[in-house]
């Protein structure tokens, strides 16, 4: 599935991240100025899916043995591509073991949960409201038949504008699922590897952006005990996260668990999209940094190749060949 998604995306900007097995020295749990220390480099990779398999109902956890077996299966190095792909261009082109970072090459935090979503109790996203379904259909309808007209018709991800996995809530992506958290007095900077840095004031102040909408929204933070709470609103109306509206509010809750783990929790509140707010949580494992520059747009040959391929196809059809 991931493979297919990557192939469909077509964008080939691939950054290499060197991640060694964690050999982290014990970290101080407080910054020099007394805030809880949640800083470091982490992987957002997870073997636990966002939504729980339906057949598990309200079962929140696997047994430790069951979870370990599932993780081992998911993280086993792949033994080459499927037979049908061997020797093909896509076999080489999308060999993320070599040119990116496949999941088994990354650190992944131990997690016995059956899903990242914790609320609703069935571990699945609430129903979409009618307005959200209508927005989605209108968007699809506007695009139909024009998918290859110009760069604006391609997805925001392909264009290297935003990735849904790097907008808050930050979620595991197909590859390069890493983030940096940096702290200085009064600020926390969070950057998902393939996303933009968010500089978050932690003075609990008001959103100052008024009606300004940004691709990454506008984030403000505050400390609640040991937890950094970040509220993000003012999303760009086109940056729909699973069909979300521009009025989505995401509340992230980040807490240091131990030297090698930070817990990342979140609540998504968007009455114009889902029938109820929903929440999730998953652990992030510390990795040796740094994250290398992703420079997605700079290496984006995909858009040019997709459009020129389509123009060539149109020319071929026009010439009756």
């Amino acid at each position: 599935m991931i493979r297919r998604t990557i192939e469909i995306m077509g964008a080939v900007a691939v950054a290499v991240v060197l991640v060694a097995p964690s050999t982290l020295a014990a970290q101080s749990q407080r910054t020099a100025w007394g805030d809880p220390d949640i800083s470091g480099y982490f992987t957002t990779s997870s073997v636990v899916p966002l939504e729980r398999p339906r057949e598990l109902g309200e079962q929140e956890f696997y047994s430790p043995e069951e979870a370990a077996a599932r993780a081992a299966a998911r993280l086993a190095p792949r033994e080459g591509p499927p037979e049908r792909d061997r020797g093909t261009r896509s076999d080489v082109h999308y060999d993320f073991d070599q040119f990116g970072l496949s999941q088994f090459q990354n650190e992944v935090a131990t997690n016995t949960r059956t899903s990242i979503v914790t609320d609703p109790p069935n571990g699945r996203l609430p129903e979409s409201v009618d307005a959200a379904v209508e927005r989605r259909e209108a968007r699809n309808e506007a695009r139909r038949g024009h998918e290859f007209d110009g760069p604006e018709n391609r997805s925001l991800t392909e264009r290297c504008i935003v990735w849904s996995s790097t907008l808050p809530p930050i979620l595991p992506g197909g590859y390069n699922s890493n983030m940096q958290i940096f702290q200085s007095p009064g600020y926390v900077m969070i950057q998902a590897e393939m996303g933009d840095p968010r500089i978050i004031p932690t003075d609990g102040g008001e959103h100052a952006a008024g009606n300004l909408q940004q691709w990454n929204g506008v984030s403000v933070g505050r400390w609640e005990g040991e937890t950094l709470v970040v509220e993000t609103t003012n999303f760009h109306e086109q940056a729909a996260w699973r069909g979300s509206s521009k009025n989505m509010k995401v509340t992230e809750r980040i807490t240091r668990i131990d030297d090698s783990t930070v817990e990342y929790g979140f609540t998504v509140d968007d009455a114009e999209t889902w029938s109820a707010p929903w929440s999730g949580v998953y652990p992030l494992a510390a990795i040796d940094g740094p994250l290398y520059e992703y420079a997605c747009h700079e290496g984006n040959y995909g858009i040019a190749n997709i459009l020129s391929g389509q123009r060539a196809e149109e020319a071929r059809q026009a010439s009756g060949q």
Partner: protein
Amino acid sequence: MQSASGRGLFWAVLLTIGVLVIATSASAQGFRTEFPRTPQGSPNLTGVWQALGNAYWDIEPHVADYAVLPELGAQFAIPPGQGVVEGGEIPYLPDALAQRDENFANRLGNDPEAKCYLGGVPRSTYMPNPFQILQGDSNVIIVYQFAAALRNIHVGGTREAPIDTWMGWSNGNWEGDTFVVDVTGVNGVTWLDRAGNFTSNMARIQERYTPMGPNHLQYEVTITDPTIYSRPWTISLPLYRRVESDFQFLEFKCVQFSEEILYGHLRKPSED
């Protein structure tokens, strides 16, 4: 009598309130008399900074000139500037000077800024956009508004650049009150301004940030690259703190503004 005295009191109270309001608002805007310092005593560079002037057009001295497309008119004409290169001229070797001139001639389509590519160092510093420095426990990061570029500066770090990147690899050190950053691993694709000045990927770049007052930094950059310059040369300009109390570091995602230059020729032709 009473009425006149009452009026006097009224104005005295109003004046007092006015003075208090002015004093309070000055303090609310963080009026500084000294450069802030960390508890350890080094200057605290945390803040939003921006260059004035127009080095971003051309770091060498230049007179006013036509816009890159003359039909853009005076509004987008190139303003004059004294330049920020010590001694005035960049000491290019002949082939490199020819490359710079070619860059200038083709700047409309070739300037990495027009393509929304990461600005590189030092160009990102004096683009006409703010940047934010965050100084943490030991390390420092800089986030530039243009293209959301991020630099991690490894304070005390000695590791060499593992790979060439747009923003390079930065190791920092404090020399007294000056923050010295050595940048290597630049990719040689970035430019230094909109006039086509450039470095190669062999460049070693040393930046020096020195507080000059409560709200100013002097920014000096020495670029050493024997493959294209006859000697090391230096840029020097002041940086100004954005002092607005409600300043918000808005995002400048420029990808969509570059798509016409990059992909416009690949659009489906109009059927009209």
